[in-house]
Every structure is written in structure tokens, then in C-alpha cells.
């Protein structure tokens, strides 16, 4: 019997559950030198904004134990140039495309959703709401149930019916299931868990924060237990809502851990910085582990850690 590695998230179907993480795959072209992008379940693009963004000054990065801190500041060309230049090339590669968008205002999210609505061949839309809301003292949209809801509602009203919306949440909240419920109520079809955690490194030689922006997002294996916890909690609270899991996955074993917690698909981010072919290695290892554990269908493994004691894979 052949193993069925395909998965789905609210109508978005993927031949396998390994995706890139937003902001970790460049334009796609860089990684295409190491493997065919069509081998991915999908490519998740960098989070694109309404206008071109220079991003932050350097230093933008600091390596940390089993991880890294980054403060890129969503550098990018803006939605118009992105749709004109990046998307046609990605379509030629035969890879499924998940566009990630980010806004500074609720209206930004509405504008971005309308722009994406007109583009054929987009598999899903990731809505990155872990961005400062300039209309609310810079508080991150995803840290507040009301602003999280407003951003997702704006996308829902403007995207039309065909493209599933995946809301990307930050774990830097007291109760992530509360935010998850709000955005699902507001029309999110799925959830991306987790974004980076806010952190800081101080250079003990200069005695200043190492990053130009002082704080940055922590990613890598150091945050994997946080991702597993968040995915597990949200899957328990909202078992019908598919989850795109991410956070420190560097091996098939790590991806499997997120799947057991409740992820329907897994994004690979920081691991790609250390190994350009990380996504392909993880994909192969995950398939092998699923088969070893007795699964004939990848989807049977999703949330398997939630089963009652004594249940088995068969």
C-alpha cells in the first residue's frame, strides 16, 4: 500500500505537507538552484505590504543558542511590483503559492486582499497580523482580540470566496486560543502557528542592544516547544480549524512533532538559512517517520497526540 502524503487546509490542497515559512525563501529563485520548488507542498512568500519597504538598518540579526533573532522590518517591493515580478516567475515553476500579506492599518489589509483577489492561481492567503498597528500606538494586531478580528474581517470582506485565509498568530499573548477563536469567527479558514517570539540580545562588549531596532523575533529550534504547545492548545480548542505549523523545525522528527500536536502542514523557516535543502530533507524524513509509525495516510497523523491513551496508529 502506498503512503498518501497529501494534505489540505480548508480547500487548499497540497501534494505534501512541507511548505516554506514566510520571509525565509527569498523570491523563491534563490532556493530553486538547490531543488525544484515544485517539490514543496507550497511556497509561502515573504509578507508583502502595500508600498515598497526598505526594512531596518543593520545589524538585523544575532545568532542565539539554537536560534536567531531577526529584525528585517518586512523589506520588500510592495504588492504591485511583487505581483508583477515575483508571482509570474513562481507560477512558471509549477509550485503552489501562498501569498503572505502584512499591513500597518486595517485598510492596508483590505487593499492587499483586493489586489490578491484579482490574481488567478493563488492557493491560499497568509495574513501576517504580527505587525505593529500604526493606528493603535504600534500595538501588534495579533496581540489584541479586537484588532486581530478587525484585520481578518477586512481581508474576509475583500478577498472573495475562493482563496482560503490563513491567519498567522504571535505566541506573545496570554491565551493564544482566545485570539484564535476571534480570527476564526472573523472568517479565517486556517491558522499559521507560530510567528517569532520577541527577544533581545545585548552585546556585552559595546554594552548596547545588538540589533539596530533593539528587539527582534526569535526563531529556530529554541522556540519549538512553544510552537508545539501553541499548536496543541489551539487544535484542542478548535479541532476543525486546520493549522499550518512552524517554529524551529529542522528535521522530519521535528515536523512530525508539530503534526502530532495538530498541524495539517509544516513550514520550514530558519532551518533553510543553515541548509538550503532543509525543506527537502525534512520532507523525506517526515514521510519515512509516518510510515515507520504505521500511518498509511499523512492526515491520520494530524493531532494524533490528542488521542485517548491506548489508541494506536492502526
Amino acid at each position, binding site marked *: 500500500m502506498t503512503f498518501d502524503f497529501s494534505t489540505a487546509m480548508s480547500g487548499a490542497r497540497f501534494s505534501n505537507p512541507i511548505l516554506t515559512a514566510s520571509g525565509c525563501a527569498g523570491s523563491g529563485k534563490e532556493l530553486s*538552484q538547490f531543488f525544484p520548488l515544485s517539490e514543496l507542498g507550497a511556497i509561502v512568500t515573504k509578507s508583502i505590504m502595500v*508600498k515598497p519597504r526598505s526594512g*531596518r538598518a543593520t*545589524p*538585523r*540579526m544575532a545568532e542565539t543558542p539554537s*536560534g536567531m533573532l531577526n529584525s528585517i522590518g518586512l523589506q*520588500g517591493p510592495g504588492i504591485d511590483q511583487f505581483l508583477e515580478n515575483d508571482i509570474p516567475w513562481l507560477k512558471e515553476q509549477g509550485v503552489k503559492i501562498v501569498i503572505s500579506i502584512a499591513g500597518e492599518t486595517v485598510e492596508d489589509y483590505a487593499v492587499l486582499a483586493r489586489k490578491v483577489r484579482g490574481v488567478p492561481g493563488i492557493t491560499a492567503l497568509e495574513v501576517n497580523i504580527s505587525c505593529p498597528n500604526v493606528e493603535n500606538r504600534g500595538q501588534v494586531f495579533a496581540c489584541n482580540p479586537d484588532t486581530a478580528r478587525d484585520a481578518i474581517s477586512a481581508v474576509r470582506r475583500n478577498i472573495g470566496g475562493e482563496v482560503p485565509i490563513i491567519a498567522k498568530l504571535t505566541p506573545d499573548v496570554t491565551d493564544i486560543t482566545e485570539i484564535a477563536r476571534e480570527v476564526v469567527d472573523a472568517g479565517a479558514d486556517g491558522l499559521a502557528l507560530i510567528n517569532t517570539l520577541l527577544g533581545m540580545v545585548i552585546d556585552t562588549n559595546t554594552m548596547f542592544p545588538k540589533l539596530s531596532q533593539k528587539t527582534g523575533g526569535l526563531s529556530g529550534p529554541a522556540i519549538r516547544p512553544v510552537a508545539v504547545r501553541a499548536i496543541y492548545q489551539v487544535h484542542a480548542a478548535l479541532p476543525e480549524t486546520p493549522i499550518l505549523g512552524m517554529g524551529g523545525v529542522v528535521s522530519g522528527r521535528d515536523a512530525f512533532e508539530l503534526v502530532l500536536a495538530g498541524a495539517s502542514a509544516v513550514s520550514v523557516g530558519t532551518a533553510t538559512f543553515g541548509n538550503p535543502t532543509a525543506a527537502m530533507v525534512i520532507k523525506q524524513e517526515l514521510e519515512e517517520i509516518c510510515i515507520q509509525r504505521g500511518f498509511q495516510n499523512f492526515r491520520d497523523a494530524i493531532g494524533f497526540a490528542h488521542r485517548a491513551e491506548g489508541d494506536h496508529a492502526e
Partner: protein
Amino acid sequence: MDFPTINPKAQQFDAEVLSNKRVGSYNHMVFSVNEIASYARPGNFVAISVGGPGTSMVLRRAFAIYRATVKPDGQGLLELVIAPFGNGSTWLSNRQVGDLVNMVAPLGTAFGIPTEPVRALLVGGGYGSAPLFALAEVLKSRGCRVDMVLGASTAAKIYAPLEGKRSVSSLTITTDDGSAGTHGRVSDVIPGIIASSNIEIIYSCGPMAMLAAITNISKERGIMHQCSVEESMACGIGVCMTCVLPVEGEDGVVRMTRTCIDGPVMDGSKVTWTKSREVPDGVWGK
């Protein structure tokens, strides 16, 4: 649209350590590689995975290629000069003969070689001298006169192997502490050499402050300046967006530009050298 991407010759592979020798404050390491050795050009770099299985170091380390050669039997050799001061470079410098390390190479841009013989000045700061000796050989083979200035904080940090010196017409050393050569900085001696040797182009590699100082000198005199920049990188392959500098493009627009893709070798006059931890005004998208 043809948007910039990584060196089309870049590959990922395991390379065996053939030798590892301590030279002053540095390690000179030779690796056995495949045909990529014939594609590497002076200025290109390599991104190396460090720490081994289960390591807590998740990012690659970038090193300028000291020399890449192909032996008559077809074996490729890649030579690096490692300054072991961080955990990653220390791990690498502790590899033994026969060990394998995972590399992605060759990456980045290379020094441009003039079509006509010119009088060139090569300036290296610390182990920034590493890519300059291979460049000197290429320039000399094209009939160029090559002068060289190497600077460091102290004598042990000057990297100037005997075989490397053969390709240069003159070598000037500067040290901050006066333990070797001229007491001072490379920028103190460069104007004199430019004048006495009628220098037409400067190639440089080293710390940002040094590159900025050389850019000022070269701009004042209308001399071309190709510099290899050192901005810290997480990936080396253009996906992490951490190694950016404000650089003016061919369209006159200054953008935050990836030094792993559009560099490390850049036209110094196009870089906005700034010590401030802010994006300079006028940068696209600020």
C-alpha cells in the same frame, strides 16, 4: 523580469579537510572539492555549516575564498584563511585532516578584472587580505602592476604568506600598535602610494570603517574602488535579508541591497557608508 539571484555556479557539497595549519593568529585550511574550484573567482565566498550534528549553531558562516585551484589530475582545492574568534570559526579551525564540512560555494560577486593592464593597489585589513593574493596573481598575469597594503591591529594579525607576496611589486604593512611596519592605519599610507605608483584602481577587503575611509580617498582622486564588504550573514544565499547595505543601483536609486548576492564585491562609490543604526534618508521604501 530578471531579478538578481545567487551565483549560478553555486552548489552544496561536503568537502574534506586536506590540511590545517596555524599561521600567526589564523588557520590556513585546504579542502578537497569538486569542479566548483574551476568556477571560483577572487572575491567569491563560501558558506559553511558549523558545529556538527546536534549543534546549537543554526546559521552558516561566510568566508572569503583565499585560493581555488584545480590540480592536473582534476582534483579541486579550496583554500581558506580562518580567524578563530567566534564559536563557529573556532569549531571550523579545530577540524582535522580527513574531516568533512558542508559548504555552499562559490557565492557572491568577484573582483572585476580590467581588460587593459593597469596599476592596481590592493588593500587588506586583518584576514581581509585573504582574497587579495589570488586577485594579485590574476592581475599580474594580465600585465598589471600590483602594489599591496596590509593593515591590522598588531603584527600577528597580518596575513601575508610568502607565496602570496610573489605577485606583488611592493608590500606595505601598517599596524595600529606599531609592532610591524608603519605605526598607523592603511588610510595613512594609501595616498602616498597612489601618488608614487600612479594607482588607477584600488581593490580592498576588510572592516567597514576601512572601506569607508578608502572610498573617501579614492573619490577625492577619481580612482575606481572595488571593495569586498563584510556584513554579517545568516544564510549566504539571499534568503535571510540580514546582510544588506544601502547601495545605489544602476537606476540611481539607493536600496537596501543584499551583500551576499550583489556583493561582497561592490563599487565603493555606490555604497552609503554610515555608522548610524538608521536607514539613511532617501533609501527606496524608507
